[in-house]
């Protein structure tokens, strides 16, 4: 117990901080302490494996729900892209184009490689259809001439849902002298996409709420952990532990909860899709549609783990901030 006794007068103004002794605050010691605390947290985690795995499972289920729904949505997008094959183009011809010209144009178009089939709706057919469906029969009778143009309904080959790609074909068709307007029959597809958009928003809202639930689960678990280690925290404070020092093991514990929960969610999602795979294959075979089920990729899975870890740390942080000041030495 040797101490150097520097002569400092009591009446001198106090230093803003006491100079740390040379042995302390070495960077490597700090890093080693982090490693030590992390390993201790892992040890602590497996000291009560059942309880902690149950917490991880709760977090896992909470995270698996939005994750699974998002993957399902991804599959729906994929599927609707395949449906692009049924997309049709309507060519509205000029009013003065005769039915004969319309028929010869349809023959011409059928010779193209990128058009599978052409159906001609003559002016007369169009008028009859309109008369039946619109309920304006009387109004039409009052007209001297047929105001409706002939229409060619084309089924293009290999069109996918990405409409931009096919604008070339559309523009080409519109440039034909007989054609007045060329347009895709895309309303139903647009509606489908709009519905999927709404569902996606819904899932994102649900995911946000469930992320908040994960914060609460982690926070509450950490709160219990803080109270059970009450004595240790108090003694640490008495011997000069900073809030950061006390916070550290709990943050690592939160990280472990989040990570194990995310791993659990990953397994759960993959298991569910594995169970779905066979029946979906069977279904797609019945429709003669090649459909590959998308599951959680490595990238999305890693993102899931990251989200779990971040939520775990934030949940622990909030809990520690809230409860740490309640524990003061007595």
């Amino acid at each position, binding site marked *: 117990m040797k*101490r150097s006794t520097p002569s400092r007068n009591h009446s001198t103004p106090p230093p803003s901080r006491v100079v740390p002794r040379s042995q302390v605050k070495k960077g490597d010691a700090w890093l080693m302490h982090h490693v030590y605390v992390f390993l201790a947290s892992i040890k602590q985690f497996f000291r009560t494996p059942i309880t902690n795995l149950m917490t991880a499972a709760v977090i896992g289920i909470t995270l698996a729900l939005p994750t699974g729904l998002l993957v399902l949505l991804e599959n729906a997008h994929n599927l609707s892209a395949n449906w692009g094959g049924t997309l049709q183009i309507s060519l509205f011809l000029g009013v003065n184009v005769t039915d004969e010209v319309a028929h010869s144009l349809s023959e011409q178009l059928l010779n193209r490689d990128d058009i599978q089939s052409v159906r001609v709706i003559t002016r007369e057919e169009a008028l009859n259809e309109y008369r039946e469906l619109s309920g304006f029969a009387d109004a039409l009778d009052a007209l001297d001439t047929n105001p409706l143009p002939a229409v060619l309904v084309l089924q293009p080959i290999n069109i996918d849902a990405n409409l931009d790609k096919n604008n070339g074909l559309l523009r080409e068709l519109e440039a034909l002298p007989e054609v007045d307007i060329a347009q895709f029959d895309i309303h139903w597809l647009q509606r489908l996409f709009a519905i999927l958009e709404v569902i996606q928003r819904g899932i994102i809202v649900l995911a946000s709420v469930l992320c908040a639930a994960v914060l609460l689960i982690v926070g509450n678990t950490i709160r219990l952990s803080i109270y059970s280690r009450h004595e240790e925290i108090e003694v640490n404070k008495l011997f000069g532990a900073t809030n950061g020092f006390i916070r550290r093991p709990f943050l690592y514990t939160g990280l472990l909860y989040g990570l194990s929960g995310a791993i659990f969610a990953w397994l759960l999602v993959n298991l569910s899709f594995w169970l779905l795979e066979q029946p979906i294959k069977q279904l797609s075979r019945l429709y003669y549609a090649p459909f590959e089920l998308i599951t959680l990729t490595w990238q999305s899975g890693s993102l899931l783990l990251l989200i779990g870890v971040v939520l775990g740390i934030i949940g622990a942080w909030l809990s520690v901030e809230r409860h740490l000041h309640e524990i003061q030495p007595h």
Partner: protein
Amino acid sequence: MIIFTDVSKRYTTGQEALKKVSFHLNRGEMAFLTGHSGAGKSTLLRLIPLIERNTGGQIVVHGQHLGRLPSQRIPYLRRDVGFIFQEHKLLFDRSVFDNVALPLVIAGYRPQDVRRRVRAALDKVGLLKKEKQLPITLSSGQQQRVGIARAVVNKPPILLADEPTGNLDPKLAHEIMQLFAEFNQVGVTVLIASHALSLIKSMGQRTLVLQQGQLIDDTYPHP
């Protein structure tokens, strides 16, 4: 080293634990704080590492005005003050070694320094062979010495002890007091609260006497 100027402590319950206490403990000085239980001995000690804050007057510890000390500086103040508790405050799920190492780990010492210093401190209190044991397996006197080893392990300039011999037989109590005298001889400022009057007398040191929160006597030993 420790300067009290008109220090008062009133609890929120209205109870006045200390009334305008003033004294000055020099660097390297050793003193006893005595008085009946409830006289304010513990309260006075607890104001020094800011376990509690005084409600009146001014305290200067190791050159720092405690009233002006921001709360984030409190941990560093406490690292300069070794505190020995009557109820030991050991962690019973950790070995003797880990208990003593606590202040060093908190201050961020390197593991090799921690080992060296913990062994030195345990050797000083005669418990080197017990380092792997859990505190629960030790006697009360041994537990008290683990507490002392923990308080001195990072060589703080100030050592405070609250009834360190409370539950010990006279022989053990005297040994403990002797240990404090040894720390004092190497320059540590020591303040011990105790009501064991005969023991205090035998140590021949400065004695502060509290009665109902007031400092009624401050005696120096006659040479």
